[in-house]
């Protein structure tokens, strides 16, 4: 039996970063908001406290904060000729779950995408010609510019309290910051994190090669900070348990530390956890959402009618929810038509290890999720791609996040992978190895996409999402080029031995790379190649907004969270200032 609940103004699918931000903006506008979170409630105290929060086996290996894939997995295949199988244990990427979502277990790396990223297709053609884009590469413009998003990036970073050093304030270049960044209206809210030793060695080496190192912008804070919501964050203690963990110190910017307590006090907001949304309901015309149907933790079915639906779950789940709700036309790779599930992209990662003499103590355990030093000389279109024949780029950084005992076992090439020699090598190299990360972009292609799996279903009987993905040749070329640059920096750092190689295909889901899954509900100006308009409003259902990294038409060199937050504020602003006054499509198709 389905219980039909009283209508609310707004229903949020997912109470993570996006849900919390939209909840706050819309309750502030006077609307009654119901937040539906499939996972459990969790707060800094008691859920993230030490020592249990430092249980590496539980959180890093067994992925305690992640989507329960015994109930809800993703199936995977490299290409359409294969049969996809469910991912039984998350490895390559880690969809979070629970109150606060993935912003609980993120690392806090907080970068703005560039104007060249938002206009990737136009700018690539303008600089290199239309033939520069390979036939199977479906990159496109976002429909927004860096200038459009600047106030929203700014507001989001001041919500987070991000620690960094500006490189360009209103067009004036500032020494010590990222010289390639687009103009920002003011400096970061807090000064950069302290520079770890390995990062200092990187800085020196990168500068000696003519690059422009700068401190990685971090949302694990360098000092106490009170944000505009009145929430005070503490200083990061460099414990090295950020990614895959909640922060016990109130030092990482997560919904729990930046916004949720304020939202939960608002009488217009209702939080319901343990609620698995099954579908978004639409009226007979198919053009208007009427609410959502969900099943609670006791297995009871509910219909929650709402005037406005905000779909703000993890990128992959945003796509799946639209497919399950039959909203929009699913993408068909054969014909290239349809939009939902189209332009799934990832991130092209590689690394370089620099093995030092045992006199050089790197102290990898004394790190934070976003401490370290990076260069953006090879990001986006910051260098001439003409001679190289690929689109995109990567940042290179000594941004080690931890020296956790189960996961951090640096050994030089040639070391056996088990046994006495392996143990000896770890003891020798543990404290004397720096790792450089090459964090690269990912173009969208015709063959990489998301749809519903024809075979496998979740615990509620709904089809799983099916991922079809392999690394495009373009990205492997990019990785080869930038990884070579990182190897040169590694050698300039004075390592006794420098190891590393570019990303190679085929893509595997059995080793961690990154949780930056993007696309599938992409934004744009053309309804035939996008799912939502530039305000993240569904082209098909005007009272449905889809917000997250699923909006990215392709993925840029940088980490996505800052852009997700900026888009959330951008969309919230459009809803509050325009949509609520006159509900209907904000852009005519």
């Amino acid at each position, binding site marked *: 039996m389905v219980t039909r609940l009283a209508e609310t103004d707004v229903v949020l699918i997912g109470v993570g970063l996006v849900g919390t931000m939209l909840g706050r903006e819309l309750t502030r506008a006077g609307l009654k908001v119901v937040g539906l979170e499939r996972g459990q409630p969790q707060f*800094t*105290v*008691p859920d993230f*406290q*030490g*020592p249990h929060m*430092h*249980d*590496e086996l539980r959180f*890093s*290996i067994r992925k305690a904060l992640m989507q329960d894939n015994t109930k809800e997995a993703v199936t995977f295949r490299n290409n359409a000729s294969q049969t996809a199988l469910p991912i039984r244990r998350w490895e390559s990427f880690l969809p979070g779950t629970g109150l606060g979502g993935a912003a609980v277990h993120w690392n806090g790396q907080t970068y703005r995408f560039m104007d060249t990223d938002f206009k990737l297709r136009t700018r690539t053609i303008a600089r290199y010609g239309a033939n520069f884009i390979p036939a199977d590469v479906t990159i496109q413009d976002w429909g927004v510019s860096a200038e459009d998003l600047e106030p929203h990036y700014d507001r989001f970073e001041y919500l987070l309290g991000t620690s960094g050093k500006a490189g360009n304030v209103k067009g004036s270049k500032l020494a010590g910051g990222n010289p390639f960044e687009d103009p920002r209206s003011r400096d970061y809210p807090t000064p950069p994190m302290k520079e770890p030793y390995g990062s200092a060695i990187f800085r020196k080496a990168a500068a000696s090669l003519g690059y422009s190192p700068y401190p990685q912008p971090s949302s694990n804070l360098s000092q*106490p900070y009170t944000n505009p919501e009145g929430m*005070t964050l*503490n200083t990061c*203690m460099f*414990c090295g*348990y950020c990614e*895959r963990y909640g922060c*016990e*110190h109130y030092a990482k910017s997560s919904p729990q530390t930046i916004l949720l307590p304020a939202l939960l006090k608002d009488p217009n907001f209702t939080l319901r956890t343990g609620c698995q949304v099954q579908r978004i309901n639409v009226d007979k015309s198919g053009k208007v959402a009427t609410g959502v149907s969900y099943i609670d933790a006791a297995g009871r079915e509910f219909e929650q009618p709402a005037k406005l639906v905000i779909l703000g779950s993890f990128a992959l789940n945003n796509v799946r929810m639209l497919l399950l709700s039959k909203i929009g036309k699913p993408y068909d790779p054969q014909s290239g038509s349809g939009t939902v599930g189209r332009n799934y992209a990832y991130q092209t*990662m*590689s*690394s370089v*290890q620099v093995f030092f003499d*045992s006199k050089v103590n790197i102290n*990898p355990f*004394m790190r934070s999720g976003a401490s370290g030093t990076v260069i953006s000389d090879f990001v986006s279109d910051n260098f001439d791609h003409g001679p190289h024949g690929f689109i995109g780029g990567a940042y290179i950084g000594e*941004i*080690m*996040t*931890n*020296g*956790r*005992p189960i*996961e*951090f076992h640096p050994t*030089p*090439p*040639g*070391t056996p*992978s088990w046994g*006495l020699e392996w*143990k*000896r090598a*770890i*003891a*020798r*190299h*543990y*404290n004397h190895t720096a*790792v450089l990360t090459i964090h690269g972009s990912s173009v969208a292609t015709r063959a990489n996409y998301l749809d519903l799996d024809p075979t496998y279903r979740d615990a509620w009987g709904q089809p799983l999402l099916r991922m079809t993905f392999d690394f495009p040749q373009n990205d492997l070329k990019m990785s080869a080029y930038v*990884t070579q640059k990182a190897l040169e920096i590694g050698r300039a750092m004075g390592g006794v031995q420098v*190891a*590393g*190689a570019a990303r*190679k295909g085929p893509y*595997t889901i059995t*080793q*961690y*790379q990154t949780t930056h899954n993007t696309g599938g509900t992409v934004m744009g100006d053309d309804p035939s190649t996008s799912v939502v308009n530039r305000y993240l409003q569904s082209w098909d259902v005007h009272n449905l907004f889809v917000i997250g990294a699923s909006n990215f038409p392709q993925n840029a060199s940088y980490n996505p969270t800052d852009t997700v937050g900026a888009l959330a504020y951008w969309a919230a602003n459009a809803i509050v200032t325009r949509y609520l006054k006159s509900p209907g499509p904000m852009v005519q198709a």
Partner: protein
Amino acid sequence: MNISSTRSAAIKTAAACAGALLAGAVFAQQAKPAAAQATAPALRLTAEQQALADAGARITKSGAPNGVTACISCHGANGEGTPGAGFPRLAGQSQFYLNRQLMLFADGSRNHPVMSPIAKAMDRQQMLQTSTYYATLSNAPSTAKGKADAAAMQRGRMLADWGDESIHVQACANCHGPGGRGGMFTFPYLAGQHQDYLQAAMTAWKSGARNTDPSGQMPVIAKRMSDADIAAVSAYFAMQPAPPPLTRSVPAGSASRPVPGPARAGGGGSSPARGTGTEQGAPTSGGGQGAGGGGGTQVGPQGPMPAK
């Protein structure tokens, strides 16, 4: 290099970097009765450390001619401190922490009418000597007594072990170790410390009179706590047995904390270089793809299955 020393060094390396492991070890000790402290094995010190500790012992007992009065008159013959007078217990406190506090008293960053002039009179070597001496002490009686009713003790324990979300205060244990028995070498132990000293210290953090935490954590935390909370948590810690001195006070490279020797060159294996953590140095290939040249994520027993 023998194997056992490599292993023990590796264990210590791991323990030093992992609060969880360290915490586990300390938890095990906590189960012992307080009387067991007296029989705790003495620290093995290098000759250099022993010399520092011996010199420190002389200063603590007799003072030094450059205006340094004997420490024992306030901090007790065995570093047990003086409850009721605000003089803290020092026995077994980390050398790093004690030495830093002396420097802070000396440069005026931290102030106390009795301690400040003494610290200002000390030279750097004397600070190191007395800090080393106190760090090695293990036979101070646990004299601290907490005075609080059951409800306050419960509140103190909650703040110590769990924190309180309603005031955004995290558990003391996050930094000061489970049971307040010290965390790493930078964070002092609180267990067995005197209630009045703890209360005065927290009040000083709260008022801003003490502002020597480079992270800024302690002032933020103290300001969020009511005076009743401060009294409760101080009483709770005062009731806990003081920990024995920890090897964390001993620098790596000494006899009791050897550093690993070099691995034998060239393992002869052909496995991929791997083990660069998680979101750092993501692997370049893995699973059934064979050897990758770059870093790979070493995920222990759940690691990638060999190619079939």
